[in-house]
């Protein structure tokens, strides 16, 4: 057996021994997702056991180095772990913006002290992070952001407002874009780490059309942010005034993450499950709807291959650096189409806002939620702008 075959066999038996059957069921509601953090609680013993087994093995962040709480897996091993988890339907043990976003930024731009402290806290699920990028006046034109950090020697005094901060009301820390030089648009922003327990930080949930409130407004009123959290742990990632580089890098990651949510082999094609759904309510798929579903499944299965190719190329350093924009655009548009078709297949049942049969209106709420896919993390139109400029090299783009 090759090393990778051995690894696959070991992974299979480890998952068999450590992933409880309940953790192989599809995620049904918010409580099924474990986000970690100071205030986190487990829904049940199975969730706790699965999380703790993964922390010990480094599998909350399998590709991170061992000294930062990961398992140090190489690209091929990480892919095998993903495949094996997907095969048994294992839930992610820990969901976190720390894993998806801050972690990659720290791995690339962080000091050793920052990595030791923050990455380990993220890997162990101790700190829940949120992202402070957008502002009421700075959406697609993010670089116009106004939240200002006034230099007071050993600390900054930060004032401003962030919006669309995901789960800020449940987060412990925020990584935040703060303007530290008003005269320099791109080179006047600092990528700052702020403890949300500091005085002057407050949050207010935003109620969305789905009825849920996954996002908040976050207010920063005269927040005193120390420039250092200890030896070799500066409060900013990268250099002061060079946070835009970090932000751009992270936006790339966010686009990959969002595009990844549209894929997933287990959920790519929906036609067969829509037929079963119809049968449950005594319906049959309309032939024209069936045709639309078939056309969708072609696109979805093809996009699954695209996701695999994209990951393979990225790991090998091939592929265009702006390709995440294409992935984000295509993946989110596809996901919106998927939910449109699911609503159609579900008929009047999928309109129910509150019922046991729909688990509290999941079809309708999820459908509405997907409309944000092509807005958050850069709108589809911004993605197309970036593709025009960086990949197609079109004039004036």
């Amino acid at each position: 057996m090759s090393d990778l075959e051995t690894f696959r066999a070991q992974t299979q038996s480890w998952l068999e021994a450590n992933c409880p059957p309940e953790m192989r069921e599809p995620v049904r509601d918010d409580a099924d997702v474990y986000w970690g953090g100071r205030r986190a609680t487990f829904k049940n013993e199975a969730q706790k056991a699965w999380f703790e087994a993964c922390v010990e093995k480094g599998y909350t962040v399998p590709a991170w180095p061992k000294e930062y709480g990961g398992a140090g897996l190489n690209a091929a091993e990480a892919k095998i772990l993903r495949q094996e988890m997907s095969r048994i339907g294992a839930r992610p043990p820990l969901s976190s913006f720390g894993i998806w976003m801050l972690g990659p930024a720290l791995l690339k731009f962080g000091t050793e002290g920052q990595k030791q402290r923050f990455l380990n806290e993220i890997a162990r699920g101790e700190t829940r992070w949120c992202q402070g990028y957008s502002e009421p006046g700075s959406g697609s034109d993010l670089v116009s952001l106004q939240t200002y950090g006034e230099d007071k020697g050993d600390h900054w005094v930060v004032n401003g407002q962030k919006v669309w901060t995901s789960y800020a009301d449940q987060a412990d820390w925020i990584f935040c874009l703060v303007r530290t030089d008003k005269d320099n648009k791109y080179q006047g922003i600092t990528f700052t780490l702020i403890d949300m327990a500091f005085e002057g930080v407050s949050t207010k949930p935003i109620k969305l059309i789905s009825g849920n409130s996954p996002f908040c407004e976050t207010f920063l009123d005269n927040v005193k942010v120390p420039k250092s959290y200890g030896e070799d742990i500066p409060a900013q990632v990268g250099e002061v005034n060079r946070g835009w580089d970090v932000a751009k890098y992270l936006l790339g990651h966010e686009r990959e993450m969002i595009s990844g949510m549209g894929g997933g082999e287990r959920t790519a094609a929906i036609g067969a499950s829509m037929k079963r759904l119809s049968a449950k309510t005594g319906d049959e798929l309309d032939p024209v709807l069936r045709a639309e579903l078939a056309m969708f499944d072609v696109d979805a299965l093809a996009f699954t291959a695209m996701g695999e190719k994209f990951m393979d190329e990225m790991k090998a350093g091939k592929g265009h650096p702006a390709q995440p924009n294409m992935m984000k655009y295509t993946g989110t548009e596809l996901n919106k189409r998927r939910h449109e078709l699911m609503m159609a297949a579900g008929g009047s049942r999928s309109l129910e806002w509150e019922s046991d049969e729909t688990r509290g209106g999941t079809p309708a709420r999820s459908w509405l939620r997907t409309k944000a896919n092509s807005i958050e993390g850069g709108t589809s139109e911004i993605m197309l702008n970036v593709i025009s400029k960086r990949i197609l090299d079109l004039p004036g783009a």
Partner: protein
Amino acid sequence: MPLYHTEDQAMLADTASGFMAEEGNIAKQLRHWRDRDCKDGFGHALWKQMAEMGFTGMLLDEDDGGLGLGHVEAGIVLEEIGRNLTPSPFLTSSVLAATALKHGSADMKGRYLPGLIEGESVFAVAIDETAKHRPSRITTKAEKSGNGFRLSGSKSFVVQGASSDMIVVAARTSGSDEDEEGVTLFAVPQDAAGMTQNPVRLVDSSMASHIAFEGVELDGDAVIGEVDGGRAILNALLTAGRIGAAAEGVGVARGAMDLTIDYLKQRKQFGKLIGEFQGLQHRASHLYSEVEVARAVVIKAQQLLDAGAESAELMSSVAKAKVAKAAGLAVKEGVQMHGGIGMTDEYDIGLYMKRDRALQEFLGDAFFHAGRVAEMSGY
């Protein structure tokens, strides 16, 4: 296996790309033969050159004199064929017929393979019987007659049928029209008595025949594989051919897209390059995204087929359908973004639209394959 080319495959891609751009380009091949009203629609000299490159027998086993390469490699050649709109017998002879002949007897291989490998022979496949691809229904009959068979019925859309030395014909040896079983494949020589070809020129300047079989007498050794056991071979050649056609389609899409993006960077209106207009930028970027996805699913299908995976069949239909949509978009957007000049014969973009149209129809269009995806998925 990662979804990108290995080093060897990347080298082959470089070679194939250089060769097709130099020898198979539109001026030298497609326009050249079209403007001379060539009865074949392709050049035999290029076919010989492709043999010298090792392309013609690349899918054949080394024991049979081939290169023993896979569908990723054949797809690399096909993508360059698509990009240059190179008319050639490669898809029908080296992919479709070659896949069938792999199942032939040693005697049959000896009869046909050397000519293919040398670029001396051209083969065709006769599957469709109506204007739409529907291989589940085979009505052309082959009845026992002495030691052999008597073939009667008709076939259509036999690409390069009149130029071929041999035609692989799917015929019914037992059962009724729609039966899965009871199909046999025959290698029918061009000079078989009772076979009448009516070759017609298609929109893309290629040639395809309507063929009538009126009591064509065939020896028993014309059977490819087993009598009544042709369905599996037919399915194998269809899967290989669809994935091959999809690869060629990706080439067509990329060729059309590249022409169009170049044009956006050259054409000025309102004192600006038209590529500066966001209305066109977004459409071009959407097109790029679709073509990228099509490329990905094609290499996925090729790898699955080469690995002998069961899912290759599903993925062949996903690939054929996705490419049909992406390439269709590429040529339509291409003509539109070229504006009036896109409607002229002088510009190449229209040639891409014509080739795409023919390729879409070949071995099943997007509707056929999306329907097949639905059936295979259980709805």
